């Protein structure tokens, strides 16, 4: 097998650094929560829907607590008290609260024991929701087996969920294993999750629970027609990481884009907010068996792929360490990287092989997410098709996990139906014709590929120990990642961060952390 000889001491060192970096962040995370997390708790308790002007009820309820200065104890306990008062289901209770018909966040006429008992009922409901989606997906996979890796990942982005369905089925027919519905431009900056089915988005289709449901049903149908499991992906990033994770779990999604730093760097979301939100969103993913996809590939759209290679590996290690803190297993971590070396570089393909093999060597059990060339794609579609072929060859040779299809028209427009089919033909051909190439070849000892991997590893050691010394938050504020500087107290969403009060309660966190069964 294509095997790299790497310095084992360095590997131990970088894992240790990453673990320390994550643990310092976790100390901060454990004593904080956010409005988005509290809204996610309410969603998992069964709250859904919008008021007459279209504002989601989870937002309205959390706003009530915030206005009353009661947020520091969290939404869970107060909502349990209101449930006792209403004697109705969660959704109806939320509506009654919104209409001012029952109290919320006030001192309750019920005893603490009664409220805690009700909170336990709600928690069991939430955990059962997460366990049930896990089970439903596994059951389906018994009937329709998961395909062999690399899984072929295709994006649809028409802005109309009903149209997306047609495109998705066409992609599955041509061989896609994973379908991602790209979100409408700038959804990551909305501090709420839009509601209902989308017929007109901008550059994509909103992530809403209804859209998740519509697409899941469509893919379940495709699955029956084509006889293999088809995974559904969306984006748990931006200001609503945890809420989207909750909705995704409810609707049986299989993967979520979820990165511990992407929002900070590329969307200017406040870093405290992001670190706190990613933790809870990942706990949900871990329990619901949702594979996360991290966003390291984005570094290489602004930084050079050779100069910045070590930042990709370092970020993968940090994402992994934070993922472990949030109970994710290796198999649930789709750590990201990309084939973005300038095609003009001599032996660039060999360097790509070195980078891809390094990722595989460091994370052998994780379904690595491999992004195709995008930045250096040409408007000459024939040339771009060849670039993708080289990417496909690198992916099958180094046995990547989640393979994003490179599209020949990348430098022109969001893909047409026929563009996707051509991309898949390219992948199908190369994955088949070179299926076991990686098992048959070895990299030359001390050759260019092995040396390059060793070099990147060395840079990672230095880079991570630097970050470990200053701390991740400070390192980001110094511009260590992607040359982008973000201040600890700047960026969007800081107003939703709060310190947990002495009475704070979020029993979902405890249940997931302690792996408690609730059936």
């Amino acid at each position: 097998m294509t095997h790299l000889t790497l310095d084992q001491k360095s590997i131990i060192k970088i894992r240790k650094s990453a673990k320390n970096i994550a643990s310092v962040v976790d100390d901060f995370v454990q004593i904080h929560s956010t409005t988005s997390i509290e809204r996610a708790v309410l969603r998992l308790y069964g709250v859904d829907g919008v008021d007459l002007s279209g504002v989601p009820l989870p937002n309205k309820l959390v706003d009530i607590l915030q206005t009353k200065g009661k947020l520091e104890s969290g939404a869970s306990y107060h909502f349990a008290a209101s449930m006792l008062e209403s004697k109705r289901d969660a959704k109806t209770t939320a509506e009654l609260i919104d209409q001012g018909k029952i109290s919320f966040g006030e001192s309750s006429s019920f005893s603490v024991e009664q409220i805690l008992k009700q909170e336990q009922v709600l928690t069991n409901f939430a955990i059962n929701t997460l366990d049930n989606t896990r089970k439903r997906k596994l059951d389906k996979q018994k009937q329709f087996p998961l395909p062999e890796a690399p899984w072929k990942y295709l994006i649809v982005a028409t802005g109309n969920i009903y149209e997306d369905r047609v495109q998705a089925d066409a992609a599955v027919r041509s061989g896609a294993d994973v379908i991602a519905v790209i979100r409408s431009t700038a959804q990551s900056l909305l501090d709420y999750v839009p509601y209902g089915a989308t017929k007109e988005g901008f550059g994509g289709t909103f992530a809403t629970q209804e859209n998740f449901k519509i697409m899941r049903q469509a893919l379940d149908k495709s699955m029956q027609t084509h006889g293999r499991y088809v995974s559904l992906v969306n984006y748990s990033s931006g200001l609503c990481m945890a809420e989207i994770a909750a909705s995704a779990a409810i609707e049986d999604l299989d993967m979520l884009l979820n990165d511990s730093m992407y929002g900070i760097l590329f969307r200017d979301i406040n870093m405290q907010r992001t670190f706190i939100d990613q933790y809870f969103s990942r706990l949900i993913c871990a329990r619901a068996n949702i594979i996360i996809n991290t966003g390291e590939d984005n570094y290489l759209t602004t930084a050079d792929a050779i100069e910045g290679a070590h930042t990709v590996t370092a970020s993968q290690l940090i994402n992994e360490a934070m993922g472990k803190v949030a109970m994710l297993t290796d198999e649930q971590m789709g750590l990201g990287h990309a084939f973005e070396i300038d095609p003009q570089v001599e032996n660039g393909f060999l360097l790509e092989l070195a980078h891809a093999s390094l990722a595989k060597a460091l994370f052998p059990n994780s379904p690595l997410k491999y992004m195709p060339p995008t930045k250096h794609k040409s408007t000459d579609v024939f040339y771009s098709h060849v670039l993708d072929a080289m990417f496909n060859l690198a992916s099958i040779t180094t046995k990547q996990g989640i393979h994003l299809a490179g599209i020949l028209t990348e430098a022109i427009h969001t893909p047409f139906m026929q563009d996707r089919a051509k991309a898949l033909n390219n992948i199908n051909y190369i994955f088949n014709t070179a299926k076991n190439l990686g098992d048959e070849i070895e990299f030359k000892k001390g050759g260019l590929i092995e040396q390059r991997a060793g070099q990147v590893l060395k840079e990672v050691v230095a880079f991570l120990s630097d970050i470990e010394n200053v701390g991740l938050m400070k390192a980001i504020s110094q511009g260590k990642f992607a040359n982008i500087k973000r201040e600890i107290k700047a960026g969007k969403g800081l107003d939703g961060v709060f310190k947990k009060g002495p009475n704070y309660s979020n029993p979902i966190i405890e249940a997931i952390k302690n792996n408690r069964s609730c059936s």
Partner: protein
Amino acid sequence: MSEQMIKPYGDTFDDGQVQLSFTLPVEIGARATKAAIKYTESLNFKDVAVVHSSKLADNFTCFVVYAKGIPSLNYKNIEATEVESTQMDYYEINSLIKTKLNRQMVVVGATIGSDAHTVGIDAIMNMKGYNGDYGLERYPEIQAFNLGSQVTAEKLLAKSLEVKADAILVSQTVTQKDSHIRNFTEFVELLEAENIRDKFLLVAGGPRINNDLAIELGYNAGFGAGTTPNQVAAFIICKLLNI
């Protein structure tokens, strides 16, 4: 005026050979192929050959077609503009500014509207530049302000007034639903409404931009894919000095 009639070239002059690829929303089969031929003929092609068809989905078929274009075109009637400026390098430009403008040249740039793409404007403005050519921030004789992406028209204008910009660079990458046209237009209209359009040179840029489009939208010039910073700097200084 004499004529210069042209047609697409395959392997013989005037054979009119064109390669097409498209999808029709019909089920694959003989009837679909016939439809592809008829449709291509209706576009003014003859000798249509559907060389490949494949099923994309139920009721969707993709075709590859070769055909001969019927019309000819008089090339003499075709006009298009490219940005006019002398080819100059970093050193020539700096020395021209220093000796002829007698002060630093001030340039403000941004990607406006909801567009979040910065790599293009950075390629022109950041130190590092593009394709081995230094960016405007590197020029000692240029004062360059790069405001980044998702900048509002108002903010770009305010900064340009504040630093007394000679030229404003506006970048647009996303073209879906013609959002680039809307954003470019919004900016020009803002300047016109304030009666200050003549205060600045306006330069548009982005992968789908060309000079004709930029002029039509009321800009002084437009630059497309592959532009290097020296081309932009040379245009601005030549225009300022009227050379």
